[in-house]
C-alpha cells in the first residue's frame, strides 16, 4: 500500500471555512464557560454574533471565488460550493444573525442563561451549512442530524411543559424521518453504487432509468424525509405543535432556516428527476404542493392562537415555495431564494413581535400564549406596535408593495413561464384564503375594543429591549422598502442559480 499522499491544496480547505467558523465558535463558548461560569447572556450573544459575522465574511469570500471560478469542490470532493450553497448559507447565517439577539429580552428566560444554548445554536448553524454545501448523502445526513439534534435540545431548553412535549414530538418524528432518509439513500446506493447526487443522476441516466420502480421507491423515502423537514402534508403534523411549544424566536427560526436547507437539498435531489421527465415525480410534487398550501391555509383559518396560525401559515408558505422545485426552471429556483429571503424578513418581524408580547408565565384563563384576544384593540394601547404587526401580516398575505408580494409575484410568474397555469391560479387563490387569517389578527388589533380583563394583565410590549426594537426596526424597514432590494437580490440570486446550472 502506498502511503496516502494528498496535497493540502487539493483539499481546498477554504470550502470548509464557513462551516467550521461557527463550530469553532461553539467550542469557544463552551471553553469559556468551563473557565468562568455565570457570565451574562449578552456576552454569549455578542460572541455568537462575532462568529457569525466571521462566517458571513467567509461566505462573502466564497461568493467572490464562486463568481470568478464557478463551482468549487473540496475535501475529497465531498464539499460542493456552488451558487445554491452560497445563497442558502447567506440566508442561514443572515437569519441567525438576526434571531440570536432575540434572546436579549427584558424578562429572563430559562434557556438563555445557559451558555450551552449558544453553543448548540452555533453547532446547529454549522450543521445546516454542511447540509447545503455538499451533494454527498452522508454529509447531508450528518449535517442534517447535527443540526436537528441541536434543534431538539434548543426547543426543549425553553423549559415549559409544552416545550418538552414539542421537543419530544419533533424528536421522535425526526428520528423516523432520519430512518426514511437513510433507507432512501440505501436504495439509491444499491441502484447506483454511489452516494453522491450528481453521480447517482449520471448513473441513472446512463442506465436510462431501467429500474424506475426502485428509483421511485427511493424518491418516496427521500420525499417523506424532506417532506418532514419542509412540513409538507401529511408529514407536517409536528409543525403546529412545535411552533406553539417553542419560544417565538425559535419558532420563527424553525420556519426559515431548516427549511431553506431542506429546500436546497430537495432541489439537488429532485430536479434531475424532473428534468429527466419522470412524470411521477412531477405529479406527486404537484399534488403535494397544492394540498400543502391549500390545506395548511384552511387549517390556519380556524386557529385561535396567533403562533399556531403562523405555524400553519409557514407550512402553507413552504408548500408555495415547493412549487419552485416542481417547476424547476432557473426563474423558479431564483424565485425560491428571493421568496425565502423576503419571507425571512417578514417572519423575523412577525415572530419578534410575538416575542415582545410574551409573558413569562401563562396567565390563568388564557388557553395559550398568543391567542387572538390578547391583541384586541392593540391600536388603542400601542398604535405603533399594532401598525407594525399589521404590516407584517399584510406582507405575509402578499399585499404589495410589502416584501413578500415580490416573492409571490415572481414565483407565480415563474409558474406561468414554466407552463403551470393552473398552478399559478391555485397559488394566487390560496393567497386570498390566506388573506383571511392574517386579516383576522388585524381585525382584532384595529377593529375590536381592548378587553378589560386583558388590559390589566397584559402589557403588549413587556419584553421589549433596545436590541429587540432594533431587530424589529430592521425587519420593518426591510419589509416596507423591499421593493428597493428586490432588483439587486434578484440579479444576484439569478446569476448564482444560473451559474450553478439550476
Amino acid at each position, binding site marked *: 500500500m502506498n502511503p496516502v499522499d494528498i496535497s493540502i491544496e487539493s483539499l481546498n480547505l477554504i470550502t470548509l471555512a464557513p462551516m467550521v467558523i461557527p463550530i469553532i465558535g461553539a467550542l469557544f463558548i463552551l471553553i469559556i464557560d468551563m473557565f468562568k461560569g455565570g457570565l451574562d447572556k449578552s456576552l454569549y450573544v455578542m460572541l455568537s454574533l462575532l462568529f457569525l459575522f466571521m462566517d458571513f465574511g467567509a461566505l462573502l469570500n466564497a461568493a467572490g471565488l464562486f463568481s470568478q471560478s464557478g463551482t468549487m469542490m473540496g475535501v475529497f470532493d465531498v464539499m460542493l460550493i456552488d451558487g445554491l450553497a452560497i445563497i442558502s448559507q447567506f440566508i442561514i447565517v443572515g437569519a441567525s444573525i438576526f434571531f440570536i439577539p432575540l434572546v436579549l429580552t427584558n424578562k429572563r428566560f430559562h434557556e438563555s442563561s445557559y451558555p450551552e444554548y449558544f453553543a448548540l445554536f452555533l453547532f446547529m448553524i454549522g450543521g445546516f451549512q454542511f447540509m447545503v454545501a455538499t451533494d454527498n448523502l452522508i454529509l447531508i445526513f450528518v449535517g442534517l442530524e447535527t443540526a436537528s439534534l441541536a434543534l431538539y435540545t434548543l426547543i426543549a431548553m425553553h423549559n415549559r411543559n409544552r416545550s418538552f412535549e414539542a421537543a419530544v414530538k419533533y424528536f421522535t418524528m425526526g428520528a*423516523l424521518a432520519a430512518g426514511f432518509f437513510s433507507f432512501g439513500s440505501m436504495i439509491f446506493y444499491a441502484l447506483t453504487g454511489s452516494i453522491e447526487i450528481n453521480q447517482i443522476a449520471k448513473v441513472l441516466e446512463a442506465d436510462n432509468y431501467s429500474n*424506475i*420502480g426502485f428509483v421511485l421507491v427511493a424518491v418516496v423515502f427521500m420525499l*417523506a424525509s424532506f417532506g418532514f423537514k419542509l412540513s409538507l402534508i401529511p408529514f407536517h*403534523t409536528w409543525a403546529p*405543535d412545535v411552533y406553539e411549544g417553542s419560544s417565538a424566536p425559535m419558532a420563527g427560526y424553525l420556519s426559515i432556516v431548516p427549511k431553506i436547507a431542506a429546500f436546497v437539498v430537495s432541489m439537488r435531489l429532485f430536479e434531475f428527476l424532473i428534468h429527466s421527465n419522470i412524470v411521477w415525480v412531477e405529479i406527486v410534487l404537484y399534488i403535494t404542493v397544492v394540498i400543502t398550501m391549500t390545506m395548511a391555509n384552511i*387549517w390556519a383559518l380556524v386557529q385561535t392562537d396567533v403562533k399556531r396560525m403562523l405555524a400553519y401559515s409557514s407550512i402553507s408558505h413552504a408548500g408555495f415555495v415547493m412549487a419552485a422545485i416542481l417547476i424547476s426552471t432557473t426563474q423558479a429556483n431564483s424565485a425560491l431564494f428571493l421568496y425565502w429571503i423576503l419571507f425571512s424578513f417578514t417572519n423575523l418581524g412577525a415572530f419578534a413581535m410575538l416575542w415582545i408580547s410574551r409573558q413569562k408565565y401563562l396567565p390563568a384563563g388564557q388557553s395559550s400564549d398568543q391567542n387572538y384576544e390578547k391583541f384586541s384593540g392593540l391600536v388603542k394601547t400601542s398604535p405603533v406596535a399594532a401598525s407594525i404587526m399589521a404590516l407584517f401580516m399584510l406582507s405575509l398575505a402578499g399585499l404589495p408593495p410589502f416584501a413578500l408580494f415580490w416573492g409571490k409575484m415572481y414565483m407565480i410568474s415563474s409558474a406561468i413561464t414554466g407552463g403551470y397555469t393552473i398552478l399559478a391560479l391555485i397559488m394566487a387563490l390560496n393567497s386570498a384564503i390566506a388573506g383571511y387569517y392574517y386579516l383576522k389578527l388585524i381585525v382584532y388589533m384595529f377593529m375590536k375594543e381592548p378587553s378589560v380583563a386583558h388590559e390589566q394583565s397584559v402589557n403588549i410590549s413587556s419584553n421589549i429591549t433596545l436590541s429587540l426594537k432594533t431587530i424589529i426596526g430592521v425587519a420593518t424597514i426591510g419589509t416596507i422598502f423591499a421593493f428597493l432590494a428586490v432588483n439587486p437580490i434578484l440579479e444576484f440570486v439569478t446569476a448564482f442559480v444560473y451559474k450553478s446550472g439550476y
Partner: protein
Amino acid sequence: MEKYLYIALFAPLVGSLFAALFGASKKTLFAGIIPSFLIFVSFVASSILLVYVLKTGSIVHVEMMTWMATGDLYIPFGFVVDQISVTMMMVVTLVSTVVHVYAIGYMDHDKGFNRFFSYLSAFVFSMMILVMSDNFAGLFIGWEGVGLCSWLLIGFWYHKESATWAANEAFIMNRIADLGMLIGIFLIYWHTGTLQYAEAFAAMPDLDPEILTWMGIFLFIGAMGKSAQFPLHTWLADAMEGPTPVSALIHAATMVTAGVYLVVRSNELYALIPHVGLFIASLGAFVAIFAATMALVNRDIKRVIAYSTLSQLGYMFAAVGLGAYWVALFHLMAHAFFKALLFLGAGNVMHAMKDELDPFKMGGLGKSMKGTMILMTVASVALAGIFPLAGFFSKDLILEVAFIDQHFIIYGVLLLTAGLTAFYSFRIIALIFHGEDRHTSLGHHPHEAYKFMLWAMSPLLILAVISGFLFKGGFFEMVTQLLPATEYHIESVTTYWIITIGTQIFVLIAIFFAYKKYMCKSIKVPDGTSAMENSFKYKLLINQYYIPHFYEEYLTKPYRKLSIIFWEKIDMKIVDASVDGIAKAIYATGEKTRGMQSGNLSTMLKWMVAGLVILLSLAVVFGLAARHSVEIGTILSGLGV
C-alpha cells in the same frame, strides 16, 4: 334680434332664480311680482320676435355655446326662432304671464309663495328651451326640465300624500316616454350623424324607410308621455293635485302640448312615414273620445277639465297624424287660451269654495261670482267650438281635415267627441253656476276672486274669443313657410255648409241637454245610491275604465313585490349567500379536518407512515405500469380503449 331671443329665453330663468333666493323664507310679495314682470318681459321680447319673423319672414338662429362634443357628436346650445317656435313662444309667454299674475292672488295665503314662483318661472324657462332649441338634445333638456318642474309643482303641497304620489306618477310615466324619445334621438344621431333639426331632416329622405319608421315611432312615444296619450294618460288627471295655476299653465296650455309640438317640429320626418301618421291620428281620435267619456261623469271639476284637455290633445294628434300640422298648431294655440282660462276660472271657484272640487256641492255660484261665471262660460263655448269663438275655427278645422282626407271613422269619432265635449263642459258650468244653491248648507260662503285676478284673465278671454277668426289667415301665412301648406277646403260648398252647420247644431243640442239635465232642481249630491251610479257604464267611466286600477294591481304592486323578492330572495339568499357559502365551506372544511391534528404523537407518526405508504403504493403502481407498459398497452388496445 339675438338680444331679444336671449331676453325671451333667460328672463324667466332670472325670475326663477330671484324667487329661489327667497325660497325658504316667508312670503314676500315681490318674489311674485318680479318673476311675473320678467315673464312679461319675455312676452314682450317674444312679441318683438314675432313681429320680426312676420315682417321679414326670416328666422333668428343663434348658437350660444357648445354643450357636448365628442367623437362625431356635436351638440351646441343653439336656439332658433322661426315661425313654429315663435308661435309656441307667444303662447307660452302669454299664458305664463297671465298665470303668474293670477297666481299672485291665488297663492296669496300659501306659505310656499316664493317657492311657487321660483318653480313656475323655472318651468317657463324650460318650456322656452324646449320650443326654442334648434336641436333634439336641446329639446330634450327642455323636455326633462318641464318634467322636473311639473314634478315640483304637482307635488307642491308636499305634505299631501296624494299630491306627492301624483307628482311621482307623472314623473315616472313621463320617464317611460322619455326613454322612447331618447332612443329616437339615438336613432337620429346614428343615422344622420347630427341632432340639429335642419341637418337631420335634410338627411332623412335618403334613409331607409324602416329606420325612419322607427324614428317616428320612438319620437312619438316621447310625445305620448308628455301629452298624456293612451296608455300613458293616467298621470294627467292625477296631476290636478297641483295648485290650479299650475294646472292651467302646465297641464293645459303648454307642457302637455309639447308632444304635439314635437311632432309638428318633426313634420319633415312624419311626412315621410304616413303610416305612422295614420296611427297617430287614430290614437288621437281614440284618446279624444276616450277622455271625453271619462269627463262625462267625473265629479271633480279640475279632473273634468283635465280630461277635456286630454281629449283636445287627441284632436291635435289626429290633426298632426293626418299631416295637417298647421291645423294642429293652430288648435294648440287656441286651446291654450281657452283651456287656461277655464282652469283659472276653476281656480277661482275652488278658492271660493275652500278647495271643494265636487260640482254637485256647489250650484248657483253665478250669483256671487259673476265675473268668473262669464269667463268660464265663454271658455266653455270656445271649447265647444261655437261660432265665432276660437274653438270653432280650430277644432272644426280638424273635423274638416279628417273629412277631406276621407278618414270617415276618425271624422265620426271626432264629431261625436265634439258633442260630448260640449256636454261635459256645460255640465260643470251648469252644476257650478246655475241651479240650486247646494253649498250654503255645507257651510260655504263663496266670494269672488281678487279683481286683478279677473283682469289678469281677461287677455285670455279676449283671445279665446277672437283668436279664431282674427288670426287664422295670418297664422296660416306664417307657419306654412315651414309647414306643409295644405289648405283644407271641402270641394262642394253644399257639403261644407251641411257639415259645418250640422256640427254646430249637434254641439248646441249637446249643450242644451247638459243644461236641461243639470239645472233641474232635483240635483242632489250623489251618494252612491242612484241607479245611474250603480250602472256598469257609470262605474266604468268613473273608475277611468279601471286603467289606474290595472296599473296599480298589475304593474305597480308586482314591481314592488318583485323588487323585494329580488332583494331578499335573490340578492341575499342566492347571490350573496353563494359568496358567503364559498367562504363558509372553506372554513367548515378547516373545522372538520383539523381533527387530523389530534396532538397525539402516535397519530402523528401514523400520518407520516401513511404518507409514506401512499406514496410507495403510487410508486409501485407507476413502476409496474412502466415496466409492463407494453403489456398494458396490449391489454388496453384489446379492450378497445
